[in-house]
């Protein structure tokens, strides 16, 4: 098992804020809209340095989404910022009609996704957002794993023509991916080559998968770990290549089992290469108040949950 050294832990939302600020300097068409959560989304630096391109819309997400769509008509590249819950479920129809169906170049940037939002509880902890966004034609869906990757993804999506959903979160996680990485939309990242099982993880679960890989190595299990930062378009070639080698698959995500990464992989395997699959995800349940660590544990999203899933799936392997 490879080592993944890191010097500090940081929140992915700060990676978004840093990437957005960078874009402010390099791309004059980038504009930012925020629904009264500038500090939470780490958009302060952009707001301070590019005030004429920052649009405070108040607590009015529907207006924000449709307005962003309108701004693209003048060639602007709007980045909307609010919590993942208010970026998707609250405004699904606005995104569907004004952004996705209309093919508008809006970047929907969504923080505080999943249970790691913590104490605010289930009203704010969305676990269905990847599914909703993935179902929309034309929509690209990205869920990076750490600060550096979120920053790189933020910069990369400005160059991509078309609607994008970029999902990130609140807690600090080890910042282990290279600062100078080239972020390629739709391209899975091989973290650890292995022979016994393929673990496909996204977002905060990528680091958990690395921790699980170490535990599995101690048990003599050689896990292949792949970071699927882009849920849509899914890197089918990379997933199939790995699955055909190891003959069994585990998916890991901070999301409902329904509709997320595991669901995407299940579809792919069922069509192309039926193989045993176990999903580490929230099983048809809302979250609740608690600390992020307590919630990750209670909802089965820790490294030991990935280890258990690997053992289950390997037992099913033919």
């Amino acid at each position, binding site marked *: 098992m490879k080592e993944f050294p890191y010097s500090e832990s940081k929140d992915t939302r700060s990676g978004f804020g840093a990437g957005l600020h960078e874009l402010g300097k390099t791309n004059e068409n980038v504009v930012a809209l925020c629904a009264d959560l500038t500090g939470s989304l780490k958009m302060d630096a952009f707001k301070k340095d590019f005030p004429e391109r920052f649009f405070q819309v108040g607590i009015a997400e*529907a207006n924000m989404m*449709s*307005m*962003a769509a*309108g701004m693209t*008509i003048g*060639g602007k590249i709007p980045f909307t910022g609010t919590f993942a819950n208010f970026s998707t479920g609250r405004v699904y129809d606005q995104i569907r009609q004004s952004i996705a169906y209309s093919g508008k170049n809006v970047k929907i940037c969504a923080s505080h996704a999943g249970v790691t939002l913590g104490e605010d509880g289930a009203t704010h902890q969305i676990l269905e957002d990847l599914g909703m966004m993935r179902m929309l034609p034309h929509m690209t869906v990205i869920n990076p794993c750490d600060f550096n990757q979120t920053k790189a993804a933020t910069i990369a999506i400005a160059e991509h023509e078309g609607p994008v959903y970029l999902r990130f979160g609140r807690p600090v996680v080890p910042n282990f991916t290279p600062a100078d990485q080239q972020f390629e939309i739709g391209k899975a990242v091989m973290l650890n080559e292995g022979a016994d099982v393929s673990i496909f993880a996204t977002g905060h679960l990528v680091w958990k998968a690395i921790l699980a890989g170490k535990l599995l190595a101690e048990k003599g299990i050689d896990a292949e770990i792949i970071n699927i930062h882009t849920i849509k378009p899914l890197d089918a070639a990379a997933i199939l290549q790995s699955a055909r080698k190891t003959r069994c698959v585990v998916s890991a995500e901070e999301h409902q089992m329904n509709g997320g990464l595991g669901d995407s992989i299940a579809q792919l395997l069922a069509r192309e290469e039926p193989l045993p699959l176990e999903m580490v995800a929230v099983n048809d349940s809302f979250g609740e108040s608690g600390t992020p660590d307590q919630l990750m544990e209670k909802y089965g999203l820790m490294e030991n949950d990935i280890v258990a899933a690997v053992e289950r799936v390997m037992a099913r392997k033919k």
Partner: protein
Amino acid sequence: MSQSSPAAHVQTETQPAQRERSIAELKQIASQVRRDIVRMVHAVNSGHPGGSLGCTDLLVALYFRIMKHNPDFSMEGHDEDLFFLSNGHISPVFYSVLARSGYFPVSELATFRKLNSRLQGHPATEEGLPGVRIASGSLGQGLSVAVGAAQAKKLNKDDRTVYVLMGDGELNEGQVWEAALYAPHRQVDNLIAIVDRNGQQIDGSTKEIMNLGSLRAKFEAFGWLVLETDGNDLEKLIASLEEARQLLGQGQPVMVLMDTQMGAGVDFMMGSHKWHGVAPNDEQLEKALQQLLVEEASDY
């Protein structure tokens, strides 16, 4: 019924904004557009004739007199006035006016609501129909879109105007009021919003379904400059739209409350919500066309 005599004065112009048309000419165009509308909805036995007929004078005034626009369509529309149709169900009038001002062949109106058409039931960009900049149909989004487009114009130092039309029933949607609050707050003063105040929505009169009260008082309280006009009197309507333009650039968005008759121009369709989303039968079509006379009809 005159089927196909080509009438150059409405069919083939490509620079409609360059020469100012007389009211008499505009009335002829409006009658032709109304003929298109009833024929389009009749052909597929679906669509929304009532609001389309009611808003015909407005769209004719905008596209053939008021707006600077280019039928050689570009999505960005730099240095052009932009129009957004928020109440997308009145697509027949939008499509007819776009075709008659040269955005696409008038003959394409025959494909309205049919399979593989660019003329979807509600306007869409997916099929690339020139003149349409955003999908609409799910109500309440167009004002926000127009506010966004107006702000992009400001960032681009483009001093043209953004227009948006909404239905009065559409004002039931909460998002309209989010945008209504925002536009004065951000001083979006290159925007003219128009409400088609025909007093009808699907289930009945707006008064009965969801009373809007005084829209003037409401929008003024939100910080808009408000005008009221007769949306089926071309002369009054054009005067009001010109007055609205004079009010731009003073830190406030402008709202034009336009009284119309649903079904205007066809006597048996007028003033009733029953013609909101119902197509005329063969006999009713003939009766309607007899009322919509044009000197040189150029039906597609």
